[in-house]
């Protein structure tokens, strides 16, 4: 029973720390915008250097979705509706899969980088120099992730739609023109806006979780490894849980 209480206390303390950490990071947005070089560096890291992996990932997501979707639709003789898989990409697959890529690539990177700074006492040095570590390290990363994930989602959607249209053409024998006609016929701006709003929140969650685990790193290189792993696991979990609740809210707004 004691361990349960201690565990609950630990969860509450962690929640309090995450909340305080996120709040402190958000409070320093003005500082990050003034130090735009720090922000651009993170934007380049999150955006430019993720293009290839996000593009390839999106392409294959489109291929797989149309492959399975076409196979199922063919059983009912409704292959012409294969363009509707594009809606699934916009609604869910684009934001969630791109967030997963960023959680694996950027969240882990933040946890490892900041964790290493923590174990090597560089963060303490920043304190000593009068620089607030959250403002200097976390806020630019938070902004970069939150701002660029929607952009990357659009990019991933585009790649996935290209892959889907190609697969629909060769495998399901539905011309790309028909594929995109059906897709744009049923796509609404509200759905696209929901997708981008979700992506914005996902980016903020990934950056916060990664940086938080980096800041909490203890125990040298081994601790850095644990923080990296925890940042990815917790980041993916947080994205999925947030996806459910955000979707419920956005669907009725």
């Amino acid at each position, binding site marked *: 029973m004691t361990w349960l209480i201690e565990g609950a206390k630990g969860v509450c303390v962690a929640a309090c720390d995450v909340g305080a950490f996120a709040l402190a990071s958000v409070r320093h947005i003005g500082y990050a915008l003034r130090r735009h070089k720090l922000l651009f560096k993170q934007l380049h890291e999150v955006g430019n250097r993720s293009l290839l992996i996000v593009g390839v990932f999106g392409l294959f997501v489109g291929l797989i979705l149309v492959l399975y979707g076409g196979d199922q639709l063919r059983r009912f003789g409704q292959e012409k509706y294969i363009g509707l898989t594009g809606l699934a990409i916009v609604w869910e697959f684009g934001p969630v899969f791109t967030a997963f890529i960023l959680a694996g690539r950027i969240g882990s990177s933040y946890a490892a980088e900041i964790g290493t700074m923590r174990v090597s006492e560089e963060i303490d040095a920043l304190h000593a120099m009068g620089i607030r570590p959250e403002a200097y390290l976390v806020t630019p990363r938070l902004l970069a992730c939150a701002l660029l994930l929607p952009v990357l989602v659009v990019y991933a959607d585009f790649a996935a739609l290209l892959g889907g249209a190609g697969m629909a053409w060769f495998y399901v024998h539905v011309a790309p023109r028909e594929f995109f006609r059906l897709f744009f016929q049923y796509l609404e701006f509200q759905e696209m806006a929901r997708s981008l709003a979700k992506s914005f929140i996902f980016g903020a969650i990934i950056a916060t979780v990664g940086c938080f685990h980096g800041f909490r790193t203890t125990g040298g290189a081994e601790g850095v490894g644990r923080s990296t792993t925890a940042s990815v696991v917790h980041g993916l979990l947080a994205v999925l849980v947030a996806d459910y609740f955000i979707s419920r*809210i956005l669907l009725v707004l």
Partner: protein
Amino acid sequence: MARKVLLGMLLLGALFVFGLATFYVENWQRYLGKGYRLRASFALVHALDEGDVVRMAGVEVGAVEDLRIDTEAPAERQVEATLRIKKDIKVRAEDKAIVKMSSVFGGNYIAIESGERTAAVLGDGDEMTNTAVAPSITEVAETARATLSEIKEGFDKAFEEIASVTKDLREGEGALALLLTDKEFGEKVRGAVDGLSKAAGRLEEGQGMLGKLVMDDQLAADLGTLTADAKELTANLKNVSKDLRDGKGTIGKLLTDEELYGQVKESMGTISDAAALFKEGKGALPMLLEDEKVAEDVRLLVADARKVSAKLTDTGGTLGKLLASDEAYERLMSALDDLGKTTAAIAEGRGTVGKLVMSDELYGQIAQLMQDIQGIVDAYREQSPVVTLGGALFGAF
């Protein structure tokens, strides 16, 4: 540490409440003030559920917010639905709310059908009184099943009757079966078909009367002329018939004048009466034929007449002188000349009698004639002894 635990609990509690609230997020619009509520009562709502959409002309304009059943209310209005309608959508008092099926796979929605555009616009809390429930797929299927059962019963009966007829045919019962199974009948039919075939061949070759009629152009032309003549004749007959109907001419008047008919009928009746008297032996004539006493009287009368005629021939008496005198002869000849002239005038239609015979006024004269005939017959009945005597006198000559 304790402070951190407390803050963490607050944060987690807030997140929990937020997460829980998302399950009721459909109702948020009510609290956010978007749209307005309407009430509508139904007898039943099938599988309609809270959150199902409300459509107007196929466009989503709201949702079902609440469903309540009131067992105390009349059966046709026992389910009360609360509808959340978007604020920019106007629902009027004449509009009709209908519970409909979304698809054959299930699901329901409420369709609002527009009524009179001039009706009052309903506001928050108002009730839609014009409601209906569309039949569910189960009811439609049940109706279809009943209909199909009736059709099947009809088919079964028909098939039974067909089977019965087929059985009778197969077993050679009934006239049709005999016709079908009788070889002699078959031979006759074959012979008839052969005959028809031959006749058709002759017809095609222009042989025989009918063949010539069909194949010979000259005959066809003659037939055409004959037809034209027949048409003309028919037209003339029609005219004659019309004249007769209109009572023109003697025959026409004879046909159409009811008075004349009455007179003829009366005369015929009188003649019939006379014949009956004759048959019954009444009057002088039958008595002359049947009564020996009367016959004896007639013989005596004839003998007396002979005596009279003998006296006439010796020119001693007055009548004898008259017969033997030239003056009397010349007067007689003159009378005969007058009679010839009169007859010629009659033939030419001149004079009274001629006109009576030849003109359209014959009708009246015939009527008069019939009256005269009737008078004569009546006189005959009354003066039959005189007639008998006259007949005897003339018979003597």
